[in-house]
């Protein structure tokens, strides 16, 4: 108890401090490891291979599905893309309509102001 009053750590606190120190050293070591170009290379190769394997698996399942005359993911993606294209066009038309409407409103406002001024004079 006297030791604790003097600021000394209990055995449990010492264990925790040691553990945290080890954790901090491990964190630094791992950060160094992942910062190495070779690790980057490994990650890049893994990413490419995982992507390719995923694609092969998806395509195989999709082929099977389509041979059963059911809409596969590729069909849904194609449909979604068509919807997106339509949405893009619709958005542009909408913007055009809105700007024309604003233009008409502005012209009408200006014409009204002119008429008022003419009436006053």
């Amino acid at each position, binding site marked *: 108890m006297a030791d604790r009053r003097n600021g000394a750590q209990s055995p*449990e606190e010492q264990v925790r401090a040691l553990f945290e120190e080890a*954790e901090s050293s*491990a*964190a630094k070591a*791992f*950060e160094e490891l*992942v*910062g*190495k*170009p070779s*690790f*980057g*290379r490994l*990650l*890049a190769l893994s*990413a*490419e291979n*995982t*992507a*390719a394997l*995923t*694609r092969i698996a998806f395509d195989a399942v999709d082929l099977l599905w389509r041979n059963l005359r059911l809409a596969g*993911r590729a069909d*849904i*993606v194609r449909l*979604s*893309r068509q919807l*997106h294209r339509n*949405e*893009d066009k619709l*958005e542009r038309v909408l*913007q055009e309509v*809105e700007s024309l409407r604003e233009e008409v409103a502005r012209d009408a406002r200006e014409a009204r102001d002119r008429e008022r001024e003419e009436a006053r004079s």
Partner: protein
Amino acid sequence: MSVAERVMRFPVNALEYANILLTTDDAAVGVTPKEVVWTHRETTLYRYRSSNRRYAVPLLLVFALINRPDIFDLRPGSSLVEFLLEEGFDVFLVDWGYPDEEDADMGLDEFVCDELDWAVRETLRASGAEELTLVGWCIGATLCAMYCGLDRGSRGRVPVRNLVELTMPIDGRQSRYAKWVGDPELDVERVAELYGSLPGGAIDFANKMLKPVTNFWTTYRRLWDGVQDGNARRESYQPMAKWVGDNPPFPGRAWAEWIELMYRDAGLLRGRVRLRDRLVDLRRIDQSVLVITAGADHIASRPGTMPFFDLISSEDVEHMDRPGGHIGLVAGSAARKELWPEMSAWLAERSEPKS
């Protein structure tokens, strides 16, 4: 607490720990009331409800293409949106949604020239203002800078009065990411083509691998310590954990372009980025600019942001460099007392009062 007591309490603590982890998805994030103003494809523009709008210049918040913009409004009492509303700002938020395989063809040009441009247009229409303040964070900050630097031809200057850039990457060639994806042998276009849209989980894994021990171990160990000591803060842990784990896919083309732009070419520095044949020249940025960098940011490090100041032509520029990490700087518990009031004061000086 003695060792014996700890052993006795172990089953209860283990249950509590498991409960916190397993109910993380139930945490409420982004709960400040808002209304949908405009939608296009996956993008949604929100306006937050407020009866306290005191400034005429609205704020448009733009987050990265990684993770969700809910970080702006993490939880009641720790929400930047809530704070800005209390300060009297009219706050809008652009949410990129969850792009999927059908959005794989979306590049940075779609995000800057269409989605962001149209979100700005709709913000101005909804607020009735002629100019706004863009607040970008991470990739969102870079997109905002690109938007302001884009040659708009006959459309003239962008209707942006102020530009606030939070932890913005401009040149990532010295970062750890660059060591991973900077190698020309990694065919990013091929990876993007194979995946369509890059799975959010893969992006999250890569982000966590930047600090593997901290992200995969220390976070959970600290939570366990908190549970054991009886001071685990469920209400702050869960929303952040939920946000970190919510990763929308990254559209393939945009990802490949981002890697090239940020980690290989640093085209923004050299003024040779073109979006739809229009040059992005950061010298066009003449707005009032506030740049906030974080001292311990391992994603958008301070040296990777600093070249921005040499490129822009603004006369009113302020730089706040504060201790903290990429996200913690703005979303951490200290931000409400320090950074947010400073940001708000900066914005208030440059946003005229509502008449």
